């Protein structure tokens, strides 16, 4: 099944309208079009080094040898196709509402497509799981945990890593983020939240059911209750942002919605994507 088939026409149009910004970081990867960490065969001059037998004579700086009679070799920058590991939170909380599930799936497909368009070798991984295709995203993990585990598959070094999650764990996210950010050239944390999660309406009396368990809580969402909830949510998001940004990563909070709105809104503002 084509990944784009998971998107509707509007989302596909938004997908084509934006491109992923990877920045000028140096990545590792197969030969490609982006600057790598080492010397390569690009046209961009990198440095000189002494000649050692076996070097390609075509890279010897003959003009310098004429001036100094020292054989030196011209080095050029390496051009690579970066690895992009898109790590998706598979927990049921990502599909707590239809809008959130749709937005999560659209973002996963979009990041994969944008990565490929940038010549990156992308793969989709699940927290606590392995590599999956976009069609294999289930958001059906209902085992309540304090914090999800890192993917079971080793992450590729010096690549870009994108974490797509709602971050709604009661536990400390630091260990997970430390694992995900370790060895990454660039790390992006996209925290996706439903509009109701961001601002629940005041006044309703509800029986709240934990989507990852059977815990129930009957509450009247009066102004005081909602204010307390929003305060806790803000602290949680701030903690997540601090951990990510403190480790050199990027953090963006996205309100679930159409892909176009998300791309042109918070993702563009956080310089994650830019118009194509």
């Amino acid at each position: 099944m084509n990944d784009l088939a998971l998107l509707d026409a509007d989302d596909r149009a938004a997908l084509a309208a934006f491109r992923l910004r990877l920045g000028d970081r140096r990545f590792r990867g197969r030969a490609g079009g982006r600057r790598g960490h080492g010397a390569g065969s690009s046209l961009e001059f990198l440095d000189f080094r002494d000649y050692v037998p076996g070097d390609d004579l075509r890279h010897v700086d003959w003009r310098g040898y004429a001036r100094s009679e020292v054989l030196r070799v011209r080095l050029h920058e390496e051009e690579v196709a970066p690895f992009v590991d898109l790590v998706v939170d598979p927990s049921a909380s990502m599909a707590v509402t239809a809008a959130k599930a749709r937005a999560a799936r659209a973002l996963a497909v979009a990041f994969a497509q944008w990565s490929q368009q940038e010549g990156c070798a992308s793969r989709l991984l699940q927290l606590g799981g392995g590599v999956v295709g976009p069609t294999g995203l289930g958001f059906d993990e209902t085992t309540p945990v304090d914090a999800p585990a890192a993917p079971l598959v080793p992450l590729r070094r010096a690549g870009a890593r994108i974490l797509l999650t709602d971050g709604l764990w009661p536990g400390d996210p630091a260990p997970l983020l430390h694992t995900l950010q370790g060895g990454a050239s660039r790390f992006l944390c996209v925290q996706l939240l439903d509009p109701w999660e961001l601002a629940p309406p005041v006044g309703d009396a509800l029986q709240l059911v934990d989507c990852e368990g059977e815990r129930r809580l009957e509450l009247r969402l009066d102004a005081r209750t909602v204010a307390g909830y929003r305060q806790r949510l803000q602290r949680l998001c701030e903690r997540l942002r601090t951990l990510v940004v403190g480790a050199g990563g990027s953090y963006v909070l996205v309100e679930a919605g159409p892909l176009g709105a998300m791309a042109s809104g918070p993702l563009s503002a956080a310089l994650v994507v830019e118009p194509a």
Partner: protein
Amino acid sequence: MTFTAPFGLLALLAVPAVVALHLFRNKLPERRVAGLFLFPQEALLAGAGRTRTRLLRTPSFWLELLAALLLGLWLGGLSFGGARSRHVVVVLDDSASMAAGGRDRALVALRQRLGGLGGGDFVSVLRTGPRPEVLAGPKALPHEALATLDGWQPTLPRHDRSPTLDLGRELAVGGGELWFLTDEAPGPGDLDVTWLAFGQSAANAAILGIVREPGADGIERVRAHLAAFGAIASIELVLRTGERELQRVRLEFADGEGTVVVPLPAGVDVLHASLSADALAIDSAAWLLPAPVRDVRVCDQLPSGAADALAIPRLLTALPAVRNEADSRTAQLLLRAMPGPLRAGQLELVVAGDGERRPLAGPFVIDRAHAVCSGLSLQGVVFGAVVRDLPGAVLVAAGALPLCTEEPLDEGRRFWLALDPQLGNFARSPDWPVLMANLVEQAREQVPGPLQTHVLVGGEARFRRGMETEPIDPAASADPEHQRRRTLWLLGPDGVRVQGHGDRTVGFPVRTVGVHTVQDHAQRPLGQFAARFLDATESDLRLLRTMERAASADVQAARQSAARDTGWERRVLALLLFVIVLLDWWVLARRDT
């Protein structure tokens, strides 16, 4: 604020029931959330095994609470004091004895009682009489009813009050109160009536009978029969004509009654007789008019031979109050040999002489029940009969041969007499003048003017309309202008004009004593009536009482229950209840979605 069905207030138990249901509710709309740990842990539902929860003051809770409250009030029959409308049906006893002070006392008490009614209360005022009369209402406002009371002047003789009380009961259906204002103590019945008697026992004298008698000596006299009810030893009778006092006579009562005969001077027109002041004035005065002139106009159109044989000129001279009239259109009685045109009210005698003649000595068959045949005997009469068929009902016959018949006509009356005046001795027998006298008296009824000049209060004054007012074209009788011109009025001594009813004979109800004048549409006087009061039982004031008897407790309770008009409160409550239930349904449906 009152409740017509206090037991319905038990439905207010629904209010705590609603609160309890909300306290023990176990179902709220579910919502799946991701960050349950972010919500404050002040759960409404504390945990398993406990069902009582913190009371949620949701819109649905308030709406259901209000609905339960309204339901209780609706079933309880909420009634605001101001909305309770009283309907008082007042029946005024119109008998003349009420005029002996009872009326005034009754009006004072009635004004006081009606003044205590509210603006939303209603009053109906009825007056007793042979036919119940509604003076105010039905359901007039109190001030409208009070305004009608001034015109109430009780004048009627004793009459049955039941039809009026029955009408009052009909008007009071649905919680109304029935008050009867009279001057007598109640009987054993009428327990549903609030009986208010304002009479006071008093002695009274009355004129029970009074007439003008033409004496044999040519002097007219007044004969008055007086009666005293109570401790009245003597009384003075005063006779006046106009402003002139003719005579003053004192009568000593023996056994409570006495008769006075007073000669009158010549030329007295309207005579006013009155007694000295006593408790009741209406029975102490009488007006006597001179005997009316009611000449019958006879038009003789018989051939001269027949008229002479029948001695018509002599008869017309001998019969009292008969005049010869040449104009057949204005005569009341026409004598003809052949039938001619008649107008309404005319009477025609056709002496049919054409045919085979046969003298008949009897036996004769006479319809003695007919007024024309009254006094006829035909004893020793040889009737010169003419053998022919006569139209109409047979009045006199000899065997199968009709001799006298009455032919029914649309206009007037026609009598046939199959008689050859020259044959036999009928015209010379006493039966012929008797027959003519009967015919003249029948025709006299058609003479224009009052049929009786002296009438009693409570009765009817009847006036015979003149033939000249009869429409020539029957179709013209439907013309409104013609109807207006034919209308007759009776002008009472109090200046009140009453319209007459009837075609040829016009009747006027008489409710006041004194001289009444009949007027045409142009207020021209056509005749006079003298009305006086005569009822010994009403003149006897010795049994009058002042007392009050309330309606029976059962009747009062039933009326009080029915009188509470809680209609609008119940309608408003029902409407509110419906709206609130709808609103609650809408709120719940919206919450579930």
